[in-house]
């Protein structure tokens, strides 16, 4: 460690003041981050949260002084352990990187060099920064891999990155960052690319390691729930500025900025309900960097916007004085006038839609893929053909106006299932009956126009869902024309306009090309296209997973409004358990191509659980400090679909595994009540004994707890004030005494003078 950097606990590890970062483009300077101040003390973990494009990653790059050719630090200072980084030479900064400040990245696969072994990539950190020999470095690297809980580190070190799973890759990246014991770790969305059960393991590891090593963390994420699990303090960013910062408690309990407050309204927390308490989306969208409004950047989307106060000049950060959080600051001109903290916000309540007749029935549907195994061994044993069981015995039915949530992690077969329904693949066995006609074996090209139009799909990726070469109107119109709903061009045009109205897009968008639209708008067009043919059933394959929270909420609400209006059956496929819980009436939980559990939403979210559902529930981060969660972290990785366990697919990771029976025998499907099915060897009675994973306080408890917190905070504030007052009065008394003393002295002096005179 260089001598001039003292591990002095008094000096903050990182101190940023009035930082301004900009990018230079053809259009000129574009400020990416403005007026950013932050202090990170030793051992502290600070979160940086915001939607995409808010500048949070730019901050990390700025700290690392890695802004690319077209970016730079325009103003302000970054001090690392008291030293101004602007005064350091490139060589000094280089020696800090990887040694004193280390970074962990979003996509571990991309962050590792594909043509170097793990060992080479790890040891070079040590040989470079500490100048130790290869042998010793390899020794330490192996120890570090052990510390990040990688089994058999020595074997892994000879591997190339593509040979290990995503979760392990991220552990390697973490090990690489921690090798030379940095004092500051920057984590840029470190779990976003991972499956939720793998994410839970990584989050736990990060928490454990920061505890052990004492490194300070700057944790960047879009996920407020994760912040709650990892951080002490958080900064909420919006359009390049911090709009609010404070301790976890104050931000989650009484957010002062309307944006922060709005974000909570967009997250499908467990007590949100699609009928009684729908999400309240933030209207509009993030302004582009060169189109930021005057005054408050959030102004155009804010319900509390007042032109004179908010629309005139830059809004400064102000300290929130109403609570006892000395670090709670907010960038809102009206924070003290507007009451944002009381009840959780929610949209308007609606009547639940009545559920109709059965529209879609799936009976013992199977989808196997043939994979040619052309290894010599397989050829010799004559088993050159293997089957990938993408879907194994899928059963469920869906009724009119009903929403079925299909939830699972990557490789669980949910997308294959969608393909079979749509006819892009045909079922290997079993039946898929749509309106009582078996379509499971009919490929899309052989389906009748009626079958096609009654089953449509909303896709995942907004940038991929629309053809970039054609106009929006043309693409929606094509569906109408193709399904023969209207023939006359004028009528088609009229219908396109009506559909745009339905998805709340301006009619002028009909003439636009997809690249002129934002992600949320494209997804709306995708919805309009799916509903253009009046389908009876719509499959939505991860329709909101690529969108930011505030936009996703709006798209979710829109989707459900249209569904309600058209009485459509909606199959909502998602990896996001929170979203599924929020909008599904019934849920199907899948793992490695099989249904683990299915039932109504309430049944699935309460015991008896399938052990996988139980773990999944626990893994999902929840942005509500009032909710208590039982922690279950799964060991290991998702097995490959190519080589699933013979018995229960979940047996390799199951914390409740019974023994050989799980490994060798297919679990029976146990029925609990009317439609609640669990595929597990553990008897239902035993599963019923399991404690709930989440303890969701009811409304009253929640209010009480909030009031208690507030009262506690008020009391603390009052005590502080009282203490201050007491101190003040003490000071006053002292002053009075001093004054009295002075008086006395004066009197004495007077007397003395008088005496002298006499």
């Amino acid at each position, binding site marked *: 460690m260089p001598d001039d950097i003292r591990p002095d606990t008094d000096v903050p590890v990182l101190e940023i003041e009035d930082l301004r970062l900009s990018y230079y483009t053809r259009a000129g300077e574009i400020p990416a981050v403005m007026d950013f101040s932050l202090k990170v003390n030793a051992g502290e973990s600070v979160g940086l949260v915001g939607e995409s494009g808010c500048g949070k990653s730019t901050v990390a790059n700025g700290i690392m002084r890695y802004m690319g050719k077209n970016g730079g630090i325009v103003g302000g200072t970054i001090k690392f352990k008291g030293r101004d980084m602007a005064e350091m030479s490139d060589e000094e900064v280089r020696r800090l990187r990887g040694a004193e400040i280390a970074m962990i990245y979003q996509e571990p696969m991309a962050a590792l060099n594909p043509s170097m072994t793990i060992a080479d990539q790890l040891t070079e950190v040590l040989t470079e920064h500490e100048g130790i020999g290869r042998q010793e470095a390899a020794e330490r690297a192996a120890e570090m891999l052990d510390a990040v809980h990688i089994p058999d580190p020595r074997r892994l070190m000879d591997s190339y990155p593509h040979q290990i799973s995503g979760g392990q890759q991220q552990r390697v990246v973490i090990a690489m960052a921690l090798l030379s014991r940095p004092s500051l770790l920057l984590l840029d969305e470190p779990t976003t690319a991972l499956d939720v059960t793998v994410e839970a393991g990584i989050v736990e590891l990060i928490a454990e390691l920061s505890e052990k090593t004492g490194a300070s963390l700057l944790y960047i994420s879009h996920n407020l729930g994760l912040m709650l699990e990892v951080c002490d303090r958080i900064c909420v960013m919006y359009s390049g500025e911090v709009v609010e910062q404070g301790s976890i408690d104050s931000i989650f309990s009484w957010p002062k900025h309307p944006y922060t407050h709005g974000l909570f309204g967009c997250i499908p927390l467990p007590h949100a309900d699609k009928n009684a308490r729908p999400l309240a989306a933030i209207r509009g969208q993030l302004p582009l960097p060169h189109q930021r409004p005057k005054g408050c950047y959030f102004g155009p989307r804010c319900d509390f916007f007042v032109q004179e106060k908010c629309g005139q000049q830059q809004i400064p950060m102000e300290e929130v004085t109403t609570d006892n959080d000395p670090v709670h600051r907010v960038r809102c001109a009206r924070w003290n006038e507007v009451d944002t903290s009381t009840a959780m916000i929610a949209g308007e309540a609606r009547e639940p839609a009545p559920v109709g007749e059965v529209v879609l029935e799936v009976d013992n549907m199977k989808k196997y893929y043939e994979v040619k195994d052309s290894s010599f061994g397989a050829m010799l044993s004559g088993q050159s053909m293997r089957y990938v069981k993408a879907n194994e015995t899928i059963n469920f039915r869906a009724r009119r106006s009903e929403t079925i949530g299909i939830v699972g992690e990557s490789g669980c077969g949910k997308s294959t299932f969608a393909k079979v329904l749509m006819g*892009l693949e045909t079922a290997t066995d079993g039946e898929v009956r749509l309106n009582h006609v078996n379509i499971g074996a009919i490929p*899309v090209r052989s389906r009748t126009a009626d079958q096609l139009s009654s089953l449509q799909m909303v896709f995942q990726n907004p940038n991929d869902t629309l053809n970039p*070469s054609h106009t929006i109107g043309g693409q929606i119109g094509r569906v109408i024309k193709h399904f023969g709903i209207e023939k006359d061009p004028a009528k088609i045009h009229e219908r396109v306009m009506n559909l745009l109205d339905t998805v709340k897009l*301006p009619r*002028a968008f009909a*003439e636009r090309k997809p690249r002129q639209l934002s992600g949320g708008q494209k997804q709306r067009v995708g919805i309009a296209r799916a509903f253009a043919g009046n389908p009876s059933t719509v499959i939505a394959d991860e329709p909101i997973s690529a969108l930011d929270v505030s936009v996703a909420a709006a798209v979710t609400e829109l989707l459900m409004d249209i569904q309600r209006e058209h009485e459509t059956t909606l199959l909502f496929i998602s990896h996001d358990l929170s979203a599924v819980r929020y909008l599904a009436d019934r849920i199907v939980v899948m793992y490695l191509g099989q249904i683990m559990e299915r039932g109504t939403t309430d049944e699935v979210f309460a015991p008896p659980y399938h052990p996988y559902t139980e773990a999944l529930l626990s893994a999902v981060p929840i942005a509500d400090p009032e909710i208590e969660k039982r922690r279950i972290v799964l060991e290991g990785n998702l097995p490959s679909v190519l080589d699933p366990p013979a018995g229960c697919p979940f047996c390799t990771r199951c914390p409740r595994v019974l023994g050989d029976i799980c490994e060798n025998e297919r679990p029976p499907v146990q029925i609990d009540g009317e439609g609640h099915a669990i595929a597990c060897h553990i008897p239902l009675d035993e599963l019923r004994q399991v404690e709930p994973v989440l303890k969701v306080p009811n409304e009253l408890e929640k209010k009480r707890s909030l009031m208690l917190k507030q009262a506690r905070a008020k009391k603390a504030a009052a005590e502080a004030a009282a203490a201050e007052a007491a101190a003040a009065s003490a000071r006053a008394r002292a002053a009075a005494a001093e004054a009295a003393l002075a008086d006395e002295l004066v009197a004495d002096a007077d007397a003395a003078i008088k005496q002298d005179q006499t």
Partner: protein
Amino acid sequence: MAEQTETLDMPVRENSLQRWLKAIALLRESPVGMVGGGIVVFFILISIFAPLISPYDPNANLVPFVTPFSTVDDKFFLFGTDQLGRDILSRLIWGGQRVLFYATAATLSAYAVGIVMGLAAGYSKGWVDEAISFVANVILSFPVMVLYVLIIATLGASGLNIIFAVVFASSPGIMRIVRGLTLDISTREYIAAAQTRGESAWFIMMVEILPNARGPLIVDFCLRMGYTTITIGALGFLGLGLPPPDPDWGGMITEARAFVMGGFPHMAIIPACAVSLLVLGFNLLADGLREVSLKD
């Protein structure tokens, strides 16, 4: 809703002229591309107006061995004349027209074949793909010039045969590019959307896939125009080109080669520079287009 008022000043659909102007405006971002485009346009204009600007009949025998920038018998020869007394400038102009015509015709034909094959191979996959790809592999395993020499020597040198040879030799390359693009675009969700509403394969290939492949294809088209120009010149140089006496740049070079050492290098150098300049134009234009399309 405030946004609804936008309907009133809804933009009119761009006509094709406006789109071209827009494309040119985009190209302005790349100086290299502008230079290339300028060179290509220069040659195209010269070819179109060849009858007007060519000072003499390209095949007329005037005064032999005149050096550039000289006036003989009141006739000014900017680039001099060749061994038969033909005006090099006029031959250059008419030769340019011929080269551009055949290069364009051959490249466009090769594209027509290559696009159809590539779409079929990339979209249908399976045995169609394997069959088409194998044929392409066989053709591409010949060194190109060997293939040209074999084809032209067998069929004889004529404009049509040159077009045929170019189509034969370069459509497999185009097919590979189109196939790759098709494979990539086929995975997009909008293709799945088209499939799930039961569109025909033909519609999907032509309307959903092809328009999205146009960016890389336009760049490749420019490069191939340059390469076809080189090929036509090379065939002329080897004596397998467009039949004489009409001028052809490659033929001009090969005829004049013997006189380089005889003190008249201009006769060979001028057409050599003309070919190089035109090819440079195409290559720079392609580079500029690529740069602009990446920026977008």
